[in-house]
């Protein structure tokens, strides 16, 4: 690398750095041999590690161990939730959902958001009143690009009133704001390990059930083996799962108050130069900022910062590797800014001096191009 300064990682919403405690748990689990389904001593040891992780996660996010299903990640958890619960219901999805939901191969009715990025509740209720069949609604708790938080409790009240099911993608919210299955009133919630400071390769689907001791039936995406009470086949990825539980616990218990201050400082400084903060008026995650400078292509901003050693993003980090216009901003009616916005998302271990440096470099760059 050209510059001697270490990289500053500001792309937590793509993947959080791993937490030390999670790393230790992963190392320990990688060194344990055994298949959690084997009945011999080492198999049982793995089984206990797996079940302890399940209990920890349920203590963080509610639900019951019977209805806590391990998956390979957030995408699989989202898809499994829809696949398993849709039956004959129509599928309704928020306009700013993650591609895991937006690209599900099923006909969808898109629920619009307002210019703040928040679901239009009046529209939603009206639609519920007029639908012949109560839908399965998918709404993310917090958006990956803007950090905008949807009023899930209000949405779940409406869903219950009209007999709809609600699946919540809490991949970005979990570990950053409190997430609890019962409090939110959702029928299912999806989580991802690496967005909470665990490692990539594990996710979680919590299902709601009236009876905590009962196993909710769910049609699996993949057949075989009978693991996860026949709801998800395949040997569980034990190390990553164990790491997820430790990361979740730490994230839920130790959220830093100063992250919001650092994020706010970036926004204050950039607004002085004419930046628009997408979703600013909404309730947002305190680590996320979607900063748009009209007329300055995001790609150019990104390159300048990348060269200076700052890792930010121009949208969600999926397959493309190339920059396309943000569908999230378009859904918020911000088409004019869609190609000009950067996502800055602060990781759990961010240092304030790095933010000061980031502000200096970013400000300097913007001044040279406006």
């Amino acid at each position: 690398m050209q510059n001697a300064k270490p990289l500053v990682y500001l792309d937590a919403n793509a993947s959080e750095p791993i937490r030390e405690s999670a790393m230790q748990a992963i190392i320990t689990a990688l060194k344990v041999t055994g298949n959690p389904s084997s009945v011999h001593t080492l198999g049982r040891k793995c089984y206990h590690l797996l079940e302890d992780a399940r209990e920890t996660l349920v203590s963080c996010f509610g639900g019951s161990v019977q209805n806590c299903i391990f998956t390979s990640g957030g995408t699989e958890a989202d898809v499994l939730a829809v696949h398993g619960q849709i039956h004959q219901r129509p599928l309704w999805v928020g306009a700013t959902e993650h591609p895991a939901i937006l690209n599900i191969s099923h006909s969808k009715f898109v629920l619009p958001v307002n210019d703040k990025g928040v679901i239009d509740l009046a529209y939603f209720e009206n639609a519920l009143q007029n639908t012949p069949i109560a839908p399965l609604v998918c709404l993310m708790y917090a958006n990956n690009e803007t950090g905008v938080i949807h009023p899930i409790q209000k949405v779940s009240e409406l869903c219950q009133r009209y007999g709809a099911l609600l699946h919540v993608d809490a991949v970005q919210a979990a570990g950053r704001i409190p997430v609890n299955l019962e409090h939110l009133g959702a029928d299912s919630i999806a989580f991802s390990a690496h967005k909470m400071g665990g490692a990539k390769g594990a996710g979680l689907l919590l299902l709601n059930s009236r009876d905590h001791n009962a196993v909710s039936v769910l049609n699996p995406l993949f057949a075989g083996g009978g693991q996860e009470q026949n709801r998800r086949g395949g040997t569980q990825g034990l190390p990553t799962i164990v790491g997820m539980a430790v990361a979740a616990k730490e994230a839920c218990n130790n959220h830093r108050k100063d992250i919001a201050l650092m994020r706010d400082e970036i926004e204050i400084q950039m607004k002085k130069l004419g930046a628009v903060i997408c979703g600013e008026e909404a309730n947002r995650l305190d680590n996320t900022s979607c900063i748009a400078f009209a007329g300055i292509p995001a790609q150019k901003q990104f390159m300048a910062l990348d060269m200076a050693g700052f890792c930010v993003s121009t949208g969600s980090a999926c397959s493309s590797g190339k920059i396309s216009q943000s569908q999230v901003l378009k859904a918020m009616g911000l088409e004019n800014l869609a190609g000009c916005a950067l996502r800055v998302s602060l990781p759990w271990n961010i240092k304030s001096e790095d933010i000061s440096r980031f502000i200096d470099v970013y400000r300097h760059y913007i001044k040279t191009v406006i």
Partner: protein
Amino acid sequence: MDKLIYLDYQATTPCDERVFKSMLPYYTTCYGNAHSEHIMGKTALQAVEQARKNVADLIDADSKEIIFTSGATESNNLAIQGAVAYLLSQGNQAKQVITLATEHKSVLETVQSVVKLGLNPIVLPVNSEGFVNLNRLENALKQPTLLVSIMMANNETGVIQSVKEIASLSHRYGAIYHCDIAQSVGKLAYHLSMKALDIDMASISGHKIYGPKGIGALFLRRKPRMRLLPLFYGGGQERGLRSGTLAVPLIVGLGEACKILIEEGIEEIQRLADFKRMLLQNLYKNIPHLNINGSQEHCLPGCVNLRLPQLKASELFKRVCNLCLSSSSACSESSLAPSYVLKAMALSDEEAFRSIRLSFGRMTTLKEVQQTIHSLSQAWLDAMTVL
């Protein structure tokens, strides 16, 4: 208690120390999302692509023919569900999907589920040695068939099918051939070559080859091009066939595991074959009327399925608590039902309950083999004395 001896390598292998070390930097310093555009993302992506090449090299394939999944179960599902869905979407009129009675549950259940699509799943029997009858396969193929899925080495018995003949028959009748090679990669006395065997799709698991749990791969032939529909959509990773953030550390671990096998696999297998010879010679001597389930001529060197005379496996297990053994596949073990694999080989319930699977591998030492011989022989003798 005596030191534990791990004899269940078919259920899962220990993670090799070198694999473990190769993964660490991708947890701690290079934690970027492999599809982020910044330098952290690019570094992660490079590591993913190197791992892909290692996997491809191990099975004589091209990097572009490897798709990463969460494990062999997902690979099996993606291959079978995905290929069938694609062929149907192209208006293919064939109605059959063929598999074998001794396949892993993830293949059997997936094949059986094609009933929901109005298709006809055919589950072929095996003979007492564990082999498919090629004439029966050919007869079945006379009805137009979409796909044949027959594993290379069985997870309970280690019995190796004649994959090349199966591939050739399948192709002669226009069917796609998928092969679950989770148990055979790195465990054969010769290099596996997808090209030489003429396989269209093959499933690989990380934790069966000294890599981590939670990662696998699907080999997907490019010439002629195998096409699939994905199990699910999303961010469009893995050329749209498998969405979801790439599990970079696990992928790097799988790649390293493959690299080690390329370098050391053949030698390792030689050593395991010697262990097995020693084990069987001694057990035959010490336990009269001991039987082996399945062919010994075509069997993995690190695996043997023993049938004890007169004694239930569960009774034996109680007497050898220091040996980590199994009675069947880990997945179905807790069900307490007799092994469906052994029953398909015409064993009675009672015979199946007298059977144990013993599998060993890279970390197994000569001393452990000797102790295993001693413990098993002694336990059998003790049990007989009580009887």
